[in-house]
């Protein structure tokens, strides 16, 4: 199939545009998304095309925005609520955790909440502790929510289109560092079902599981490790809920070693949970302890050098892969 190169933010825009054209109940609200086209330019041009009824600016009032979105979804629309930073989604946690995630169960399955919250997280450029968090574990923990974390333009488009067609609340977590990255996106109707991971690089020695902005960083590490003679398989689950356990377990059973990389801080993170799944299901296949590379358990520092030190970098991933192979963390110079 033909494909073309798009930026992550352009791929997201295409997904929203195509679904708004297809389904008149899709609308989007957020801060600065209509007139300004969004802080990350994802929604540029949509106001002119669909008008202020379906592309609407809001005041700086996240609790109200999320409440509107959840209510509209219950009433039968397909709202997209854009929250500028995932950190600010905390203002709407009651609507997300107690209403959106529970409504389907509490109505005996009759009420559905096709609510999509698009937001972004992660470190990048020294925007400090309240604008740099990776909070996927909070949503991952709540039964009833879908948690999506695309790492490429193609995945971003395909998963967002699926999100706008399925019936449950979706936490669509983008990354501030990824908006300007480029990648090939298939032409035509391009939809990616939830729960299907993607092998971003095939390998035989170690399985590395990563998502969101840790995927490109892990691919860089894998490239460097290949020069050291180590073949790394990089798996991107793409959706954390539902999680593609089968792909993970099959890969780990093959390589017998696993490293999980998350930008979020270590304590109570998704990596720990994936690790527990591997230990329960594939313990007897393992030839080394599962390694977790994660952010430090501190608020993300403002200072750029400290910010960098607080989240996994390429060398941290390389060292963990080498440990999983029972090798010294740093390759010794050939000689």
């Amino acid at each position, binding site marked *: 199939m033909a494909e073309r190169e798009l930026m992550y933010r352009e791929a997201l825009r295409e997904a929203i545009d195509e679904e708004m054209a297809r389904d008149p109940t899709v609308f989007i609200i957020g801060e600065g998304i209509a007139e300004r086209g969004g802080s990350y330019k994802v929604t540029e041009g949509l106001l002119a095309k669909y008008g202020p009824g379906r592309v609407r600016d809001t005041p700086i009032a996240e609790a109200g925005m999320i409440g509107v979105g959840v209510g509209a979804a219950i009433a039968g629309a397909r709202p997209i609520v854009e929250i500028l930073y995932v950190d600010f989604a905390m203002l709407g946690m009651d609507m997300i955790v107690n209403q959106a995630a529970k409504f389907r169960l509490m109505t005996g399955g009759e009420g559905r909440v096709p609510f999509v919250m698009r937001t972004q997280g992660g470190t990048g450029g020294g925007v400090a502790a309240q604008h740099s968090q990776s909070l996927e574990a909070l949503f991952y923990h709540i039964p009833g929510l879908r948690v999506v974390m695309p790492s490429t333009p193609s995945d971003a488009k395909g998963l967002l289109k699926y999100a706008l067609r399925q019936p449950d609340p979706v936490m669509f977590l983008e990354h501030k560092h990824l908006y300007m990255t480029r990648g090939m996106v298939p032409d035509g109707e391009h939809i990616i079902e939830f729960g299907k991971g993607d092998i971003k690089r095939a390998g035989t020695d170690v399985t590395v599981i990563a998502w969101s902005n840790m995927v490109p960083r892990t691919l860089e590490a894998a490239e460097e490790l290949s020069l050291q003679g180590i073949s790394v398989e990089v798996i991107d689950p793409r959706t954390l809920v539902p999680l593609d356990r089968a792909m993970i377990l099959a890969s780990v*059973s093959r390589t*017998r070693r696993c490293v999980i990389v998350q930008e979020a801080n270590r304590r109570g993170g998704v990596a720990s949970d994936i690790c527990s799944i591997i230990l329960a299901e594939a*313990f*007897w*296949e*393992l*030839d*080394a302890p599962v390694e977790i590379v994660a952010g430090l358990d501190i608020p993300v520092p403002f200072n750029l050098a400290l910010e960098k030190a607080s989240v996994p970098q390429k060398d941290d991933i390389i060292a963990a892969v080498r440990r999983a192979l*029972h090798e010294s963390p740093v390759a010794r110079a050939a000689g």
Partner: protein
Amino acid sequence: MAQPILVPQVGQDLTEAKIVELFVKLGDTVKKGDLVAVVESEKASFEVEAFAEGIVISLPFAVGDVAPVLEPLMHLGAAGEEIALDATVVPAAAPAASPADTGPAAVALAMAPLRAGGNGGAVNAARRASPVARLQAAARGLDVADIAGSGPRGAVVLKDVLALASSAGAGGDTLEIRTLQSGQGTPVVFLHGFGADLSAWRPLLADLGLGLPLMALDLPGHGSSRGHHAAGFDEIVAAVGQSLQRMAAGVHLVGHSLGAAVAVALTEGAGLDVRSLTLIAPAGLGPSVNGDFVKGFLGARSEPALTAWMRRLVCDPASLAPVLVRATLAARADSGLVPAQERTANALFEGSTQLFSVAEALRRFQGPCTVIAGRDDAIVSLRDIEASLPGNVALHRLAQVGHLPQVEAPRLVQALIARSIRSAG
């Protein structure tokens, strides 16, 4: 490294065997496949062969002694090697009288490879090892305590086990075929069912009276092949098929349950000339299997629990000999066995559904085929089996018999196996 040769199981409910011939004495060197002894039960005699090369370094029994089954008949090792004291066995008069004597601990001890030079000689006394290294070592009869590990702080990792196994010439890829009785002519290969191992066939073979070589192997995930993981039915068939290549000139297959399904699948694409098929309570013909049984059977950790589940295998609970339950439990003393079988079960069954079918392959098989099934089979229903049998297959429906016709109606099953094989000419 010293390894024991065990007194074989000689009957479903027999716990001891008489040693009638010993072909070796202390200090003799034996090769793999050498006949080392003959033991007998009241009904039949069994040849015991060496499974590895080595020097006989212990021989606790003499001709005429009565030895407990599954205890070491002798140990093979290197010149000058001693065996650890705690693993030598004093001839026991009647171990069946006390369940403790034939329980898991006794058998696990007997099956554990012995350390060179006693406990002080272990290079890895703390037994540090990765899970897969531990499993693979156990599958090859190696003790991680004897292996110098290359992992962190001396831990044994997979490559250490594989290196040792390949240097010892022990192939890891093909399943080991055991000769249960030697003979002349086209070999008969017996394939056991899910959760069993090849020793399950021994009682049945005692007086089969065919004169053909009788062989068996442990399916992947079972018995000595528990380190051999198969990702699904096709992989099991491929592994067995590969192991049987040296019998490409012709083979009779006898299978029970899962083993019967494997036997049918081997009639196609494995490059084997299958002369006859005898299928006992075959799986793989209908869609359903008793999923509760598979789950409960694998989950049982105590003798009462396992007894409760294994009773489902038979129509008359009295026909289930306690020794059969204890042998199953004893095999599970190896911590890798149950996980290996759970993996196999997950690949074969989804709840009460069999994920594989050999009904079409059976339809295409033109040779003689006999099916033996119990009317009261609670695991795989007779109705399912009947529904998918082609017309050229002989079906024997046994009243008052469950999933183990070979246990509940051994005489008849022996006669039917012999007739089926003879009919192939």
